[in-house]
């Protein structure tokens, strides 16, 4: 713990040097210390790195790094443990919610979150996800939805938009053949075990602010409420959308939000409160 004197710039304490108050810069934003100081492997502009950063900011702001365990399954974010300076488990494709169940059931006082992509959560792992939420597993699911398989380089995901071109839907997603994109947040909000469900996007500074707030709430709710929190985050995938990051940001505003409207879908109720 630093004292105020230690924090004070030396010049300010010196009575003979007049301190120019306006010119004293203070840090108003810096990389969270919980984020490992290495370059991330993600493509330029990738939302994964951004959301990693947000989660670590929240963990730092809440000062819960010692009590947080993350689970990152297969997908681009499989290397999350390289960047998040907390204890983590890498899970098999789709199985993050089962792994997190194993962790949280045995350590109910810890903060547990999964970090899953759309292929992981909504395709191969939807059974584990749905049942975990139905049981009201008391952890946070961070669901990164960028409508495409990133790691395997651009195949159709369960959340690919109708008509959207991917390497496995070269003529655009044909809804009559593959069905419509799965609206994960709405689907899971139907389950009584879900206590907080929200969908945010990180393609603007305000979107980032709202997403961080949602993550902050979700971490806090883990301690306050019984049940599962789901924060769906609409992110970009510039490399596989064949766009620049800025074009990808516009695509989210113009196309993604039509299928995946932003906002809170389910908020905790008083009867969800934990009772001691």
């Amino acid at each position, binding site marked *: 713990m630093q004292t105020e004197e230690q924090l004070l710039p030396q010049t300010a304490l010196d009575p003979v040097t007049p301190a120019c108050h*306006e*010119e004293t810069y203070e840090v108003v934003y810096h990389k969270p210390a919980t984020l490992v100081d290495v370059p991330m492997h993600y493509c*330029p*502009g990738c939302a994964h790195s951004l959301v990693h950063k947000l989660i670590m900011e929240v963990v730092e702001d809440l000062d819960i790094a010692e009590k947080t365990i993350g689970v990152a399954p297969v997908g681009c974010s499989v290397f999350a443990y390289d960047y998040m300076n907390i204890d983590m488990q890498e899970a098999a494709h789709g199985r993050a919610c089962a792994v997190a169940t194993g962790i949280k059931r045995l350590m109910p006082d810890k903060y547990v979150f999964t970090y899953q992509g759309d292929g992981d959560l909504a395709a191969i792992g939807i059974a584990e996800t749905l049942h975990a939420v139905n049981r009201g597993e008391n952890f946070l699911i961070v669901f990164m939805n960028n409508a495409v398989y990133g790691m395997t380089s651009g195949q159709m995901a369960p959340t690919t938009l109708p008509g959207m071109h991917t390497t496995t839907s070269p003529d655009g997603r044909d809804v009559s053949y593959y069905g419509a994109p799965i609206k994960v947040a709405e689907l899971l909000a139907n389950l009584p075990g879900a206590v907080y469900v929200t969908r945010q996007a990180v393609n603007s500074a305000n979107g980032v602010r709202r997403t961080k707030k949602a993550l902050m709430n979700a971490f806090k709710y883990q301690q306050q409420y019984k049940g599962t929190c789901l924060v769906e985050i609409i992110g970009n995938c510039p490399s596989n959308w064949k766009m620049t990051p800025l074009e990808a940001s516009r695509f989210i505003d113009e196309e993604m939000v039509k299928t995946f409207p932003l906002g809170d879908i389910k908020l905790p109720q008083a009867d969800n409160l934990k009772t001691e």
Partner: protein
Amino acid sequence: MEDNSKKTAPVKERKVKGKVEIDIQKCKGCELCTAACKEQALTLSETINIKGYRYIIANNDACTGCVNCALVCPDAVITVYRTHPAKKPVDITPENIREQLHDIVSTSK
């Protein structure tokens, strides 16, 4: 969303001054920050960094320290600084300094 990367901003007098520091070796030049910067203070370099990316350079004279660039930076390469808004003239006394310092500490938490 507007692509501000090619514009430069006129420098004007402001009450709050900001500045950014960019870890250029980790910057991937995605330019998300340039669009987030209302002051058009960020542009892409002509040279490349060690990884081969053009990186972001800042015109700190135009910076207000609004933090938008750092928020949208996926790689967390931007550190933002800001001065206090100019308040009423102050006498520099140890009590005064303590009081202001307390403000700084409590707002940065």
